[in-house]
């Protein structure tokens, strides 16, 4: 648990001032005492962002930074210093070959995975995007057990999210490719695995949406209809309530997360291929793979691109268009969908944009929900195990920026954008204020609510 930092805190007047303030509000400024579960989450947070497990310097947060929605992309990567452990392959002699492909990491946001084993490091690997870790409690359960990672089989041990960290340390944290435990890294302890799992499960949504939402925008509203239309968009069969699980009405109760071969691998002119770097085909689940990948949640999609397991599509509109194209409609999933419903997916440009607008709006609603949570936690001095207290306003700002960006890029809801911009101004002011931070945070939360009221309501 860290304390909020004020500007000038390091100067003598600043220290004297802080001392006086400390005497006055020694108790009232403290976040509430955390509950035991919160402590486990907080411990997990510390491990997630600070623990390198005696490896190459990477932490879980190297690829899953909180400030970038727990994922990486080229725009984020370019903001990092050259010596960031994410780029270990560029400066660590023991990792120069067959650990990562720096070009693909920097230009396409791809990391290297040895999904099918470590026997032929030169040729047997996959290049994959980094899935965010939001809403995991709603997206990894399936009838066949937990599905983690892009193909659902990313974890060793019992295959659970808890075990995933062990595999991640072995794959991504080693000092050398010998991967000797105790020399190239240390394995997480049981206690650490418990904490890491608790932290990850605390991130993002804890509840599914219930569609249809009473959306106010005509374009997004029509997009929602198309999304749920079993004869038109056909999206909700696999993305029930815009989440990561199959529709119980189609797949039966408790279907949970499902794997499909949707033909993404067959897309032409993929950005990774255009680099000229070696990109072996990714065969998905299993060894050898069956070509399937698991279904991601769409609520968090619009601000976590690029899309699909190989970052092959940059925009949310492009991701919707994918289901119009040959790659999907000729894929095993596309063919069976066509057989079951009398045809493939064939949306016109207006409809594509409408579905994307719907996805943009529900993403922004989640940005707003999270922002309000961070702001109110700050205003009420509430302990938030999954975020350091002195980072609450910064995280609110991140989410606000995401919401603004997602709406503006779709030309949606200018009045809501204005409210979000005002919330941003107030949040920034709260970060810089000595005495009015709580009030300003509440005012910012109010602006977030006004923005939300522009998007959805009775």
């Amino acid at each position, binding site marked *: 648990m860290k304390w909020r930092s004020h500007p000038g805190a390091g100067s003598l007047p600043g220290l004297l001032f802080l001392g006086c303030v400390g005497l006055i509000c020694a108790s009232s400024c403290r976040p509430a005492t955390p509950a035991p579960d919160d402590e486990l989450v907080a411990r997990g947070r510390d491990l997630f962002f600070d623990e390198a497990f005696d490896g190459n310097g990477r932490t879980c947060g190297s690829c899953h930074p909180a400030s970038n929605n727990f994922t990486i992309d080229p725009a984020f990567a370019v903001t990092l210093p050259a010596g960031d452990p994410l780029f270990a392959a560029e400066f660590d002699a023991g990792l120069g070959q067959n650990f990562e492909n720096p070009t693909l990491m920097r230009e396409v946001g791809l990391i290297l995975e040895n999904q099918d084993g470590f026997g032929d490091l030169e040729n047997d690997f996959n290049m994959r995007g980094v899935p965010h870790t939001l809403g995991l409690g709603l997206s990894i359960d399936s*009838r066949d057990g937990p599905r983690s990672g892009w193909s659902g089989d990313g974890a*060793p041990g019992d295959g659970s999210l808890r075990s995933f960290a062990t*595999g991640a340390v072995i794959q991504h944290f080693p000092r050398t490719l010998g991967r*000797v435990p105790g020399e190239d890294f240390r394995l997480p302890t049981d206690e650490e695995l418990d904490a890491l799992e608790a932290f990850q499960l605390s991130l993002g949504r804890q509840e599914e949406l219930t569609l249809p939402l009473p959306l106010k925008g005509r374009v997004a509203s029509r997009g929602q209809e198309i999304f749920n239309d079993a004869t038109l968009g056909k999206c909700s069969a696999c993305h029930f309530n815009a989440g990561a699980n199959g529709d119980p009405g*189609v797949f039966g109760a408790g279907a949970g997360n499902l794997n*499909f071969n949707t033909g993404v691998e067959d897309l032409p002119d993929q950005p990774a291929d255009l680099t000229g770097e070696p990109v072996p085909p990714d065969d998905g689940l299993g*060894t050898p793979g069956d070509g*399937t990948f698991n279904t991601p949640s769409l609520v968090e999609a619009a601000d976590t691109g690029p899309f699909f397991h190989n970052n092959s599509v940059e925009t949310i509109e492009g991701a919707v268009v994918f289901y119009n194209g040959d790659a999907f409609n000729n894929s095993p999933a596309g063919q069976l969908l066509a057989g079951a419903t009398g045809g493939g997916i064939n949306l016109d440009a207006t409809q594509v944009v409408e579905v994307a607008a719907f996805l943009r709006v529900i993403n922004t609603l989640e940005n707003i929900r999270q922002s309000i949570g961070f702001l109110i936690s700050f205003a009420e001095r509430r302990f938030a195990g999954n975020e350091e207290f002195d980072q609450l306003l910064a995280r609110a700002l991140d989410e606000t920026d995401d919401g603004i960006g997602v709406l503006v890029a779709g030309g949606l809801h200018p009045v809501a954008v204005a409210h979000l911009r005002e919330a941003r101004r107030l949040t920034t002011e709260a970060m810089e204020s000595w005495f009015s931070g709580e009030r300003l945070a509440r005012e910012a939360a109010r602006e977030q609510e006004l923005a939300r009221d522009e998007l959805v309501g009775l």
Partner: protein
Amino acid sequence: MLKYGTAIGVAFALLAGPSFAFAQKTTERFIPIGQSPGLSGDYTNIGSIEAVSVQERTVTMSDASGSYSVGIADDTHIWLDKSKIGSTNAVGTVSDLQAGRRIEVKYRDNDPQAAAEWIKVEILE
């Protein structure tokens, strides 16, 4: 809608992921005996090799509960745990299953009657 749902459900059931325990556990090879998260101590057996029958495709192992036989299938992974000597864990073969060596066995579908999904063999020299 029900017809649509049934049809698409049957169709997708055919191409949804297979209903077996997930096969890709490639990093498992690097996890020393007894440290596999969620498995070791709960769903694996750790003991010593008493005998190996290549013809019967079995390894007889013993632990505190006694002596028993473990089936070896064509796709059973055999990994050499060299972590105690500071070497990289490697892929092994049936010939590495030698009497006296310490092993950890994970059964397919966690069913002790089934063949081993993987066997880790401790290498100390």
